[in-house]
């Protein structure tokens, strides 16, 4: 009898104690973020470094860009992460003013599985033809015309796309809409699309796995996932007419142009001569006013410190180790300027 009461009291006490962790504490202990999977290998690496250096735990959940935006909207994270910047309509829907801080550059690559792993070249026309199902065989004259010195097999093309909504799809379709009128008309740009052909797989790893297990498959994935699984990727013809392989240099080159003050810019189909055409920034998103959900001043300060560190040289050095490109100096300066606008209860944190 007594035991029952004790047990009940204990259960109630424990639930009360666990239900209000995190916010309202004076000293920050953990910083929580969630969002894009496209830069996740990079984030996992640097946040681990940060935790072991500073003794502050950073947890990052790869739940997709949309999930990251929603988590920030619900004010349950210190920062969100997204591959697609929030357009004006989305910004207006957020409860507070949102800042975009670019953290690195990544490429979306056309990865394929063909016997002998040939190095293919693709033009925008070929991309449209293959991903819209107009070209169905690998030895189609249109493909062999661009790749005259490669013996292509008489094999059906299997297009693999994402089954879940994703920032990677957004970047890819943003590019396709810029280079193909048909694509823009029929498919359009978005995180998930009405696909004319092909099969869907979940997440970047799912698409990469399906490509590497299916002969004749082609799909689009974040470059890191192609390199990690050793799947060949196509060189793409850019606006200047050059065939460019995705690499740290060619992705960096795509960000050479003018970047707006709020860093919200699409880099796809870049006009840089040596730029890879499907490159993109990926952003961390935070509230300009850090005093929400009764967060402590320290929590706000630590969040900003972390993000400053991410765009600083120590973390940027790590980008290339996981096949991302570091922020060009101009972009990093812009990112720092954006960060300096952050306030806590109206006061600048600087």
């Amino acid at each position, binding site marked *: *009898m007594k035991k*029952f009461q004790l047990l009940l009291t204990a259960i109630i006490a424990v639930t009360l104690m666990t239900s209000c962790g995190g916010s309202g504490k004076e000293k920050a202990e953990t910083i929580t973020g969630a969002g894009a999977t496209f830069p996740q290998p990079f984030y996992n690496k640097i946040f681990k470094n940060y935790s072991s250096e500073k003794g502050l735990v950073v947890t990052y959940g790869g*739940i*997709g*860009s*949309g*999930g990251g935006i*929603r988590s920030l909207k619900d004010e349950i994270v210190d920062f969100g992460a997204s591959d697609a910047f929030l357009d004006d309509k989305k910004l207006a829907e957020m409860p507070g003013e949102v800042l975009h801080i670019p953290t690195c550059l990544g490429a979306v690559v056309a990865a394929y599985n063909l016997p002998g792993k040939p190095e293919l070249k693709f033009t925008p026309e070929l991309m449209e033809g293959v991903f819209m199902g107009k070209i169905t065989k690998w030895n189609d004259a249109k493909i062999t015309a661009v790749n005259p010195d490669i013996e292509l097999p008489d094999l*059906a093309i*299997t297009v693999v796309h994402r*089954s*879940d*909504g*994703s920032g990677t799809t957004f970047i890819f379709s943003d590019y396709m809409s810029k280079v193909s009128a048909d694509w823009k008309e029929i*498919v*359009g*740009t*978005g*995180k*998930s*699309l*009405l*696909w004319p052909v*092909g*099969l*869907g*797989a*979940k997440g970047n790893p*799912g698409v990469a*796995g399906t490509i590497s*297990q*299916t002969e004749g*498959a082609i799909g689009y994935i974040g470059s890191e996932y192609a390199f990690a699984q050793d799947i060949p990727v196509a060189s793409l013809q850019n606006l200047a007419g050059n065939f460019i392989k995705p690499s740290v240099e060619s992705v960096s080159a795509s960000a050479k142009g003018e970047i707006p003050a709020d860093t919200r810019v699409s880099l796809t189909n870049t006009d840089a001569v040596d730029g890879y055409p499907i490159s993109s920034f990926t952003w961390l998103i935070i509230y300009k006013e850090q005093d929400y959900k009764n967060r402590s001043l320290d929590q706000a300060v630590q969040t900003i410190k972390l993000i400053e560190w991410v765009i600083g040289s120590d973390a940027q050095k790590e980008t290339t180790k996981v096949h991302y490109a570091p922020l060009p100096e101009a972009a990093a300066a812009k990112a720092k300027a954006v960060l300096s606008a952050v306030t806590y209860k109206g006061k600048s944190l600087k």
Partner: protein
Amino acid sequence: MNSEKIFRYLLIGSGVLIVLIALGIVTTLFIGAIPSFKEFGFGFIYSADWNPTQGRESYGALPFIIGTLVTSILALLLTFPFAFSISLFLGEYFRNGKLPSFLRSVVDLLAGIPSVVYGLWGFYALRPVIIDLGLNAQGFGIFTSSIILAIMIIPYASSLGSEVISMVPGSLKEAAYSLGATRFEVVKTVIIPNAGSGIFAGYILALGRAIGETMAVTMLIGNSNKIPTGIFDLGNTMASLIANQFGEADGLKYTSLVEIGLLLFVITGIVNYLGKLIMKKLSA
């Protein structure tokens, strides 16, 4: 307060809580689905459009309703001969001994394997077979998913069956034998009529399990949001669609997904209700 009373309140409390949670789920689904229903009306159920591109959004559930029903029913048909044999084997022919108890544990083990592992196995082991048979160029699709589902639901379809078959009164069987019936005739004329409704209940349980399965299906069905043209074509199911799309969903897409969830709930309800009706008929 004595312990009798406390215990009683605990029991009442948990009972009420479960009912409240169930009601809460339905209410949440209803409220979440209202905007989608206002937008599309009943057309949502028979429209085959699923276009999430901003500015052209239109959503319809038909491809997923078809995908869900076809994969589940096909899986049940594939499961039936195996599940029925296992039920008879364990419930009537070999009730005790090493082999049956081994078989029983293996079947129970099937129920314990996480669905993502089934999905993996299907992806790496079953797909090449499907490709070699020339059923589907990539080895994905409705048929592939159904085979995996069939294996997954064997334990649900067979264990209840073997229970009821073993509970058929011995005296009835003895009577049939004494009239000169063979073993097969006993199964046909005594066991199946007596245990039929119980066996059937197991299949309804299994069907419900197949309808709701998500992960293994997502990995194998090809996630194509169009109406499948045949059982070897790619498709998608309601559960798999929700799992794939909700992470990025907002606005109209979000509410459409909630409505799909509600429809899934309704379909499962209808299946269970039909099952109960048929069971009544069988046991009458």
